[in-house]
């Protein structure tokens, strides 16, 4: 499912908002989540999961082609930990 399919599906499931408002609302939610993580703040959605940043120390890497050592700067990467309800609903016996 893509973002536009998700938005379409939400539009069809509610009857109070006009489509353009649903579209905007979803985009605002995602933008707020990105802003929160870029400020190194956590996101905690009960029943869904939590997002935070994991920090990677700087290290010496190698250019795989030439073998030359290059210094890789420290960086932060987003991390998602699924919450209990999401884990249980996805983990259906197969």
């Amino acid at each position: 499912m893509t973002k536009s399919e998700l938005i379409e599906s939400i539009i069809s499931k509610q009857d109070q908002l006009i489509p353009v408002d649903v579209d905007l609302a979803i985009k605002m939610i995602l933008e707020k989540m990105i802003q929160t993580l870029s400020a190194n703040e956590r996101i905690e959605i009960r029943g869904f999961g939590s997002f935070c940043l994991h920090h990677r120390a700087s290290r010496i890497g190698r250019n795989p082609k030439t073998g030359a050592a290059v210094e890789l700067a420290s960086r932060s990467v987003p991390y998602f930990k699924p919450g209990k309800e999401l884990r249980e609903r996805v983990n259906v016996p197969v």
Partner: protein
Amino acid sequence: MTALTKADLADMLFNELGLNKREAKEMVELFFEEIRSSLEKNKEVKLSGFGNFEIRDKKSRPGRNPKTGESVAVSARRVVTFKSGQKLKSRVEGYVGIS
């Protein structure tokens, strides 16, 4: 520093988009429920600019009870993984915090 919650997202939709409080709360719920129900049906969710929620089937493997050291089997399971998208990655990678 407190975490961003569903209540904060609903407040934003109320303050900045002008939804009423009930609509705002429902929209936030619907958004996360829609992702959960897609994943529950084994369908991955790709949110361009943010990231992809993917499903992985894990085989059963031998594990250990970390308390007693006893070996126990970890059962086969289906799990969700998140792969962040380019835009999210590039917006957070430069974060150098004073921690």
